[in-house]
């Protein structure tokens, strides 16, 4: 089967004074549609960086990135945004909920950027609140939630727009193990329904849900 995502020799570095500090080195990676990939590695290895490159938030790198045969590295911002809105959902490592919006409003944000009618959006949000069993929290502000609850909202927000590919940066880091398992079950189900999932995790248990584990150390992908 053809690759959905195809990275070729991706380098990323930060300039620190006269020195270049590489975070990603000649990363070459293929992910097929419907795959469930776990990205693992020590802290500071470059996992989040990789995920942001995949999610096109980070564009300051060199190399090639093909997404469904489209050369992301050559596209302008508008095209990239279109692709992103059509296919991607993102769970941030540090949740990044919007402080001034309620839980329900936070969930509505991705929908509001995607030409969906208001009434439809309300239905979708209600549905997702239900699925994550946080209906009771819908009018609370992020500051009124526990860390785990915030993470749950972050995951819910990533999948609310029904993405084809979910990029999740430690989606269960702050969750109770049973809650974590629930999220994993949900990912598994989404995966079975056709979603491609790339998930950064420190937990071997969670990694076991994946079809494949990509290990990354000091910016290098360890080839199996």
């Amino acid at each position, binding site marked *: 089967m053809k690759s959905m995502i195809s990275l070729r020799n991706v380098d990323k570095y930060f300039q620190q004074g006269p020195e270049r500090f590489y975070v990603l080195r000649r990363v070459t990676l293929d992910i097929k549609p419907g795959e469930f990939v776990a990205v693992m590695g020590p802290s500071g290895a470059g996992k989040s960086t990789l995920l942001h490159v995949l999610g096109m938030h980070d564009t300051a790198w060199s190399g090639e990135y093909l997404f469904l045969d489209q050369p992301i590295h050559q596209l302008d911002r508008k095209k990239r945004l279109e692709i992103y809105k059509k296919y991607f959902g993102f769970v941030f490592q540090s949740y990044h909920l919007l402080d*001034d919006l309620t839980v329900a409003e936070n969930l509505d944000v991705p929908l509001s950027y995607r030409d969906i009618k208001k009434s439809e959006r309300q239905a979708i949000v209600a549905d997702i609140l239900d699925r994550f069993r946080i209906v009771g929290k819908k009018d609370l*502000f992020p500051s009124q939630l526990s860390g785990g609850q915030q993470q749950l909202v972050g995951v819910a*927000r990533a999948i609310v727009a029904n993405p084809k590919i979910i990029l999740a940066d430690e989606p269960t880091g702050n969750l109770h193990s049973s809650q974590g398992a629930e999220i994993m079950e949900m990912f598994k189900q989404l995966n079975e329904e056709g979603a491609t999932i790339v998930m950064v995790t420190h937990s071997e248990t969670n990694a076991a849900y994946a079809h494949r584990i990509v290990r990354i150390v000091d910016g290098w992908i360890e080839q199996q």
Partner: protein
Amino acid sequence: MSGLREDLRISWRRLAARPAASAAAILALALGIGFSTANYSVADAILFHPLPVPDIDRVVVIGLRLEASPDDFRSVPPADFSLWTSSSRTFQSIAADRRWFATFTGSGEPLQVQGALVNAAFFDVMQLRPALGRFFTAEEEHPGHDNSIVLNYHLWERQFAADPAIVGRTVQLSGRSFTVCGVLPKGLNFPRGAEFLAPLAWEPGAWADSSSFVLHVTARLRDGASLPQARAEFDSFTRASAAQYPATHSHVTANLVPLRERASGGHAAGYIRILIAAVLFLVLIACLNVANLQLARILARGREMAVRAALGASRLRIARQVLVESLLLSAAGALLGVLTASWALDYIRALIPPEFIRFLPGWSSLGLNRWVLTWTALTAAAAGILSALAPVAWLNRASLAPSLHESGRSSTTGTTRGRLRTSLVVFETSLAVVLLIGAAVMVRSFGAIDGLDVSNDPRQALTFRLSLPESRYPGSAAAARFQNDLLTRLQALPGVRGAAIVSNLPGSGSANSAFVTVEGRPAERGPGAVSQAQSISPSYFHTLGLPLVEGRAFNPSDGRDTAQVAIVSQAFARRFFPAASPLGRRVHLGDGNWLTIVGLAADVLHDYGDRHPLPIVYRPAAQFTWNSFDALVATSGDPSSLASAVRRAVHDTDAAQPVYLLRSFDRLLRDNTFGIAFVASILAALGAVALFLSLLGVYSVMACVVAERTREFGVRLALGARRASLLWLVLRSGLLIAAASLLLGLPAAFAVLHLLRGFIFGVSPYDLSVFAGVPAVLSAALAAACLLPAWRATRTDPITALRYE
């Protein structure tokens, strides 16, 4: 106090660490304090210390008014004055004065000087000491002994080079010799416009005249007497006069006003109060600006402040720190403000034409005197405290938040402080809305009254005034001959399209009025029976460009020996002959001389303060001749090029006649609306500064908001937001500020203009173009102020924004 020194040191370091924000705060304060200082010094010169008169609050000016019109202020007949001086118990002395335009001869060109005839009580009322020599005494008020005059300081400097040997010198005024006995103290320019004082010496019989409304009266309250007591006393006097002289005094009552209010002319005190109110608005706007900048400064150290505040003990200390910072800023603002003020005062001085300065008694003391600088210091201190108030209040409330959330996770204070900052800027902007609308209405009003509804262009006409002395022109035949000769000479000049004589030109600020009696109706003496009376040459309507609606104009054959005729204005016809044409009807003006109406003239607004054209009756100057009159010369080009030819024509008619107030007609009209022009231009400047300050405020709030929301913008971009949507997000909050400010500001402006409606002429105080235009301009300007921060928001790099932890 060592703590205070440390506070100062730390404040200084903090202010220096954020130079842009500190500079913005100092700029705002310098503008606010500077303009307020400049205006205060105008107020000081015109209202607070207009004259160097001891206990000026005890001095009252007394005029007469029609019962129906409270703002009316008329001169007083000698009979009333006599009654008041002999009967009043509430005043220790009462003085009368009367304008006298005298021709000063002896040194080169004859010079027309405005002076006043006063009685000796004037010096008691003012409690003055001469700068030189002595004042004249009551003995010198009798005819035959009235040969002393007192010069005012200005005339002494200007005409006599401040020569100390002036006392005892003889001068010629309108053909009479006077001996200078003294010089008034510097700065005493009263009665308004008078440059010398001569004794008011009348035959005893003249003091019983009850029908010549010619005297200006000033008086000093006796110790223990109050103004309300005096008013009650004078009510009884005018009731007695009304009974005694029903023809002239019915419905007339006394009007007693503190001298301070009228020292600089009718509306001046009111206008000054408007300016002071406007300036207080401006200072408040500047304070709100600084409060916001201070708040941002504190929020930038948010966690540290919150933690410190949570420790409780240091809360007062933090408040003190904030206060010291604000006071430091306002002190710097005050220093720069004084510079701004001295610059603004130069501008204001240049606004006032030199010939006006005589009419503003306190103008010579305009400047940064000790009263003004005290005001500056007080405003600066108040501004420092006011601008610290909001941040300190926020600190007090904010101290609870971290103690409730021990973990120190993000809290809702983000929205509360956002709300506080937004409310400050909304409040600030709504004040600016009020100021802008007030200024715009004033400017519109000035534009509206500046014109006169006549067909000939006032810019192409020359005017001047002549005053023929009774001694050279006894009886009206001589004066009429002079007028005829002069007009013949003027009309013969090349470039002259017409020349005319009129007793008082429209817009000149003076008018004669008379009670009208219509033939076949009982004589009326109420306010409704009053008409303005003008004596004109036959060429007047043509020269002015005022159409004749019906009947005929005067012609040279309407002379002393032919039937007495009149032309009336349309307002006159509406008032006295509402049903039918006035042509052929007869009226008299109180003297029993019947005039046949032969023409009907279009209306002309004689004084913008009248709001509507008043009735006017015109008579041929040949049949009713005034010795003082205006001349109007219509030219086909620039009138100033004719000035010397006109002077020569007057000189050829009578070499001893000085030409007074030679200027273009346009200039005369502008001079007459000078007060409102002055106020309008100052208000416009204040409005512009207010707009600038509120834009500065909105800009800095938006810049802060964008900086604080960087992470949010990053998240939104990462969730798929288009960059344009971020631009709109920021612009929208700017427009919300504009909308909220207008919601607050427009009704407030409406209320303020309702209070000011008495000062607005020519346009409605609720002028639609202003009430629609100001919001449009403001919204556009605010959106523009948001553009840079908004653009910065769209530049957010999601990846750096998301790294924010």
